[in-house]
């Protein structure tokens, strides 16, 4: 009984995890080898995958995810790093950092609707820019590829920069102040200190943050679903949205599963690469 007790304690968590990750995961892999027609499962071998590799919409969605997610992630990291570097000594920010988490606490769909109002339906942003005299007529944010992508990037940056900011502030606060002071005495100015000292010391933290955020961003769905629906011409359709469309619009479940499996492989491999690179020269 005594020996069993620890297992008993972790059992609920393990069961929970297995049931929501492992089971659906294996189910998806299994399903990706079938053509699913409502109740009927027709084994098709690797047909789904073959078809997927020839599907320009799939590759398009992958590219969109990369462009939108990549830019958003880069901007978030950069912004968060710079803000964190200038703010982390500030006692006010130390005391109130939890406030910066607010955008993350809002319901994603609500945030998406707000941005939809701001950019598209409500034209709040166009209106503001017009009043400032920067533009002379309404901008149709869904009318151009870069602008449509920009709306998704802005929404993501707004919601997630604080998350990275908090992580980076914590990392900087954890750094030994004397090291930065030594660098100052050695004649380094702040950009040199940031580049030569602080940034390399933060490498593992940045890697973890990028992975967490990166995984989340590759599954970007809510904003696409609510704000753009993939328009114009599928140029804002992310992989998640593609999978959703294949699965729940055209009920092509086997095909959607195959896409999900490929996405999973890509995510795991890239995360692994980043971790390896970031932690390789951290020590020794």
């Amino acid at each position: 009984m005594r020996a069993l007790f620890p297992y008993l304690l972790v059992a609920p968590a393990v069961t929970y995890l297995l049931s929501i990750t492992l089971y659906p995961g294996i189910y998806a892999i299994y399903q990706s080898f079938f053509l699913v027609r409502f109740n009927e499962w027709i084994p098709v071998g690797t047909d789904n995958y073959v078809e997927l590799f020839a599907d320009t919409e799939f590759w398009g969605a992958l590219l969109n995810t990369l462009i939108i997610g990549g830019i958003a992630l880069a901007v978030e990291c950069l912004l968060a790093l710079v803000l964190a570097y200038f703010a982390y000594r500030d006692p006010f920010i130390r005391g109130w950092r939890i406030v910066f988490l607010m955008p993350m606490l809002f319901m994603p769909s609500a945030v998406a609707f707000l941005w939809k109002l701001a950019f598209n339906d409500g034209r709040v942003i166009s209106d503001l820019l017009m009043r400032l005299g920067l533009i002379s007529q309404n901008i149709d944010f869904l009318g151009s590829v870069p602008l449509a992508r920009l709306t998704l990037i802005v929404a993501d940056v707004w919601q997630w920069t604080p998350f990275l900011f908090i992580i980076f502030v914590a990392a900087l606060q954890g750094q030994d102040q004397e090291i930065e002071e030594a660098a100052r005495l050695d004649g380094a100015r702040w950009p040199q200190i940031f580049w030569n000292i602080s940034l390399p010391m933060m490498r593992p933290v940045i890697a973890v943050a990028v992975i967490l955020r990166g995984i989340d961003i590759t599954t970007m769905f809510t904003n696409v679903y609510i704000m753009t629906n993939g328009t114009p011409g599928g140029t804002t359709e992310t992989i998640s949205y593609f999978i959703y469309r294949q699965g729940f619009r055209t009920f092509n479940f086997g095909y959607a599963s195959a896409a999900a499996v490929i996405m999973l492989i890509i995510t795991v491999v890239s995360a692994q690469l980043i971790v390896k690179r970031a932690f390789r020269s951290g020590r020794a």
Partner: protein
Amino acid sequence: MASIHLDNVVKRYGAFVGVKEMNLQIADEEFLVLLGPSGCGKTTTMRMIAGLEEPSEGDIRIASEVVNGLDARDRDVAMVFQGYALYPNMSIYENIRFPLRMRGVPKNQQDALIRRAADMVELGDFLDRKPAALSGGQRQRAALARAVVRQPQVFLMDEPLSNLDAKLRASMRVQIKHLQRKLRITTVYVTHDQIEAMTLADRIVVMSRGEIQQVGTPDEIYSDPANTFVAGFIGSPPMNLIEGQVHSGRFIAPGIDIAAPGHMHGNVTLGFRPEDCGIAPDGQAGLTGTVYGIEPTGDSTFLTILAGDKQVEVKAPRDFRAPLDSCASIALDPARLYFFDSATGQRMRSTQ
């Protein structure tokens, strides 16, 4: 070229006063040692000179230029931090090279300078390692090398040898002194170690609780202490301090009855160094007590005598032995007695 002046410098942390009203003139090319117990404000004083901490009051001048508000980077000061502060992501080579790189030393001169500094601290074989892969003493030497690799106006060294073994410490001590003399750079050096202070310093500043107790050459500090704190802090073992009373020209305490300078009376503390007294032939004793302990150290024997309830240290010849609890008579050298006011701890000079 680079003298340092502290004029009425005060450092407060909230209500706590870390450094009180400090006035100190450090001459150009001087080797000044700050000596004092833990928490007395040595590091704080250094950090203010370096520009890492702003004084709450008062001025700091380097080379007669007021440097208050001047960024640490622009003060041209090199510092060895108490906690080493090596850059963890860089190899030792890169660590030592960093100040050269930041100060724009031409690339083709860097390597020779780095190797010279590394050789001085005997770290030539460890240049490729990261700080995490070094022992505490090796890290400390790397920090020292990084500070001495260039020629600043001022060296600040915060206990740079505290983690080294006795032998290495002795050799590094000589090297630091030699280097300082050769480069002729004004140096402020913090230590707990009296031997280090005595051997290195042109002048020693003894501090306690944020206040300067005495400034003087090692000789002055040793043979002319200004108060009981300095007397009890310097020397190993330190000066014996015995509280007693002076009545009509005689100092009286348990086991002691000796002549005191005429102008004193009341509560007086007598001080004498263990090395300034000896075993007395019978009848000439200034102090009598019983033997409490004997510690042979090789070149001499330290004798602890119990006089009343007070322990007194005496340095005796190296072959001196006596049974415990036997009577001991100690002769005091009248020329080497120090008298302090018991109330204030200040020295009472017999010349006045």
